[in-house]
């Protein structure tokens, strides 16, 4: 660089160009206000449900007690404990098996084991019921092989726990894998050099290290279990969430439904409290890939094939068998053979599903974009706190969100009546407003997470540079943040859209009269055992849900290649 040509600019007169002070402050305030509004949208429905505990209605409680509340609470506890234990054993065990051992197919199973995530539990449940039912292939084979007249109805708690464990273990598997790839390797190595065998080192060092992740995974599973009331109905298991659905859908009893939803909320708060206690002061992250990995131990003899067999069995039961079964049924309906042929309602319901998923995804990502940008641009404590509140919906069971949203709509309706606008019952029972709002509450967290992860690549210094160069916050977001977080926006849209497409409990509680989606249709068809028709819509849901699973986890779960390993 030679001596540069001397230009002698003078400083711009600062005062002249400065806009009024209110406007200057306002640039930040509108972001903060928007975050506060989103936080209020998320919190108010939950708060309304919670407040119904504070004002218990004795009549309602007497009625609930008579209809077996104690039994339902008991069933809820048993189901949750059973599924959490089942997923911890399955997810934690498989994660350890894949992370620390070498056996045929390890690389493929590493990510194939996430695939069951693509099969919603209510789909897995009815496929299981079909296969295990008296006329189904399993019992038929048993009868013909053994010559015995076996006729068992596949019902009950045990089966419900098993099916939900297979459907939900990937949550634990993913978190456990992340924990194992982060800090376990070095400590595990240290324990081995101190004379501990692989199993003892795993038990005494790796398990305590993975505890926060396992606790988080268990809590996630517990919330999903608490949310569900479709899956377990196939097995005649009655939990509190089932009761919420029945009380609302069968009797439209708002008071009873909200009191029951409050009971569900108590369960959720208990789960969070337990998770916090187990996590202790440790923190967990979902970062994959970084850091040294555990050097896997080669398995020998029968144990290597046993390892492959276990993995194959889980992937088979959790994904391959249901997918093939659905494929079989849908080929029947599409090719017009045997059963009912192609049902034209499929097109309508597919359209409805796409509409709801697209609107939910767009709104969630837009809201998440406001929140993460507000945190970046106005890094004060209040904005941070509000931002954290906006993501609590993911930890609130679906029935609570749905009933809370109903209470909001009822209040809104009453308020409109006061000002003289009578919309009848349409607001509560005839509009998509509540449904979409509930989806935003429930799915804002995954959208916010993917945007936040993306925004991490935009360093604070970049934001500050843009601001000091005179760009107001809106321009910083438009010119710098948004172009750089495009991938996060894409991931967020896909995640929310798929979640919304699969979602059933909220849809069942809040859908307008006459409005149905693929998920609802699948639920109804399966309840009536219309297998040939249920195949195609269920397969559609599974196929769509497979996309993000493959795209997101195939690369992050990559294990070290064949022998040696880096």
């Amino acid at each position, binding site marked *: 660089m030679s001596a*540069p040509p001397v230009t002698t*600019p003078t400083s*711009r007169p600062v005062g002249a160009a*400065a*806009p009024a002070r209110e406007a*200057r402050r306002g640039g930040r305030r509108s972001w903060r206000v928007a975050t506060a509004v989103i936080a209020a949208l998320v919190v108010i429905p939950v708060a309304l449900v919670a407040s119904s505990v504070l004002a218990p209605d004795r009549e309602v409680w007497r009625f609930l007690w008579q209809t077996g509340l104690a039994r339902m609470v008991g069933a809820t506890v048993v189901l949750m404990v059973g599924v959490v234990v089942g997923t911890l054993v399955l997810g934690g065990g498989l994660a350890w098996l894949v992370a620390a051992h070498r056996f045929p197919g390890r690389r493929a199973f590493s990510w194939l084991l996430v695939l069951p995530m693509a099969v919603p539990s209510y789909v897995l449940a009815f496929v299981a019921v079909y296969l295990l039912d008296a006329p189904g292939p399993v019992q038929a084979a048993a009868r013909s092989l053994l010559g015995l007249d076996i006729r068992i109805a596949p019902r009950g708690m045990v089966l419900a726990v098993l099916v939900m464990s297979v459907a939900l273990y990937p949550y634990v598997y993913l978190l456990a894998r992340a924990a194992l790839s982060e800090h376990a390797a070095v400590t595990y190595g240290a324990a081995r050099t101190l004379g501990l065998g692989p199993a003892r080192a795993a038990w005494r060092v790796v398990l305590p290290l993975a505890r926060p992740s396992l606790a988080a995974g268990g809590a996630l599973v517990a919330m999903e279990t608490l949310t569900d009331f479709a899956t377990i109905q196939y097995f005649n298991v009655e939990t509190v969430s089932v009761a919420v659905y029945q009380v609302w859908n069968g009797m439209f009893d708002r008071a009873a439904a909200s009191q029951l939803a409050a009971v569900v909320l108590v369960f959720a708060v208990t789960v969070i409290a337990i998770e916090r206690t187990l996590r202790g002061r440790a923190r967990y992250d979902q970062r994959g890939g970084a850091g040294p990995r555990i050097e896997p131990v080669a398995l020998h003899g029968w144990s290597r094939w046993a390892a492959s067999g276990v993995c194959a069995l889980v992937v088979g039961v959790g994904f391959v068998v249901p997918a093939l079964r659905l494929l079989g049924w849908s080929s029947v309906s599409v090719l017009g053979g045997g059963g009912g042929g192609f049902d034209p309602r499929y097109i309508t319901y597919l359209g409805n599903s796409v509409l709801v998923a697209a609107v939910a995804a767009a709104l969630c990502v837009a809201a998440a974009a406001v929140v993460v940008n507000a945190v970046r641009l106005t890094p004060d404590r209040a904005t941070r706190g509000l931002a954290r509140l906006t993501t609590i919906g993911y930890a609130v069971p679906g029935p609570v969100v749905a009933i809370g949203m109903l209470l909001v709509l009822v209040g809104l309706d009453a308020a409109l009546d006061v000002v003289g606008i009578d919309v009848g019952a349409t607001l509560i029972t005839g509009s998509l407003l509540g449904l979409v709002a509930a989806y935003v509450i429930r799915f804002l967290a995954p959208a916010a997470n993917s945007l936040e992860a993306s925004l991490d690549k935009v360093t604070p*210094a970049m934001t500050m540079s*843009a601001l*000091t160069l*005179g760009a107001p916050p809106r321009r910083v977001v438009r010119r710098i943040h948004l172009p750089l977080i495009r991938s996060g926006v894409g991931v967020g849209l896909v995640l929310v859209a798929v979640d919304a497409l699969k979602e059933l409990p909220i849809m069942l509680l809040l859908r307008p009269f006459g409005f149905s989606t693929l998920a609802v249709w699948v639920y109804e068809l399966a309840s009536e055992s219309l297998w040939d028709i249920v195949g195609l819509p269920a397969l559609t849901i599974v196929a769509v849900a497979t996309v993000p699973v493959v795209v997101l986890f195939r690369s992050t779960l990559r294990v070290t290649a064949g022998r040696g390993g880096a």
Partner: protein
Amino acid sequence: MMPTTDAPVVELDEVTKRYGVVSALDRVSIAARRGELLAVVGPSGCGKTTLLQIIAGLTDVDAGRVTVSGRAVAGAGAWVPPEHRHVGIVFQEHALFPHLTVADNVGFGLPRAADRRVRCAEALGLVALSHLAGRYPHELSGGEQQRVALARALAPRPAVVLLDEPFSSLDANLRGRLRQQTVEVLRASDATAIFVTHDRQEALSIGDRVAVLHDGALEQIDRPQAVFHAPRTRFVATFIGEADLLAGQVRDGLAHTVVGALPVTGVEGDGPVDVMVRPHEVVVEVAGDGNATVGHHEFRGAYVLHTLVLDTGDELRCDVPHTRTLDQGARVRVRVDTSHRLAAFPAAGRRAVTASPTGPASRD
């Protein structure tokens, strides 16, 4: 040195910033004059970066006032957000926008006016990078990125440019050359600049004035020569260059020490003092009846830093040209060059001294 006028472009008045119970800045008052290059130096965690963030508007103050070009921008109820302060900033990691070309990066802060392209080209010419206007940041070397960041900050003609350790991410060979070029560019554009660094050599060599921060407090602000030769505090003495403190008694303006009577400044009246002695001021000659023994030594290239153990037990470091060697254990006579007055501190504050054996490391 460029002439500077006395009108302060940036003025911090008793600025305090706390994070919880920790004071990042404690009643700091600093003013940067028009056209001046003010170097702010201190060890990590001394509050330098907080200082820049407060001036740029990325952090608010807890107490005190900040003015930029005479306008109150923070404190006492005033608040101007960063985008309206006309303060440019160059970050350590350069923070170029990765999805914009060099020209778009430099033009980002310019209003959409007819002369936007002209000004953009002008700023790029200033850092001699006109030929890279169409490149993307990832296609540039570290030094080029740093120059683009400087051009981007200068393009809107800010009232002041803040530089936050802009060279520390570059390797040592490049750093010295780029430092000189940056100073030339800042001078050529007549910019007022505040330059934050933890490197005392950097601060001394490019600052018109040097402000030394320690634990959030301003220890001294003065010309480099004054900060080096007449440090106001023990911390400045030992941070800004290698220094040993020798105990002595002042009588009639002379400090009587184990190495003789030394002319001192910085103390009033008689009494016990500590006299600051820098290694280059120590003169040593081999003498069997001397007053010290040669301790260990450290090869520094052009000279060798020897540690001398005085018979009183005090240690004194001494620069010796590399052509001379002093054997360990040899007896020597130690004198101190008395051609100028040495800084002295009243001995009452002695326990506050934490003069590390080699002083804070310089990165150069």
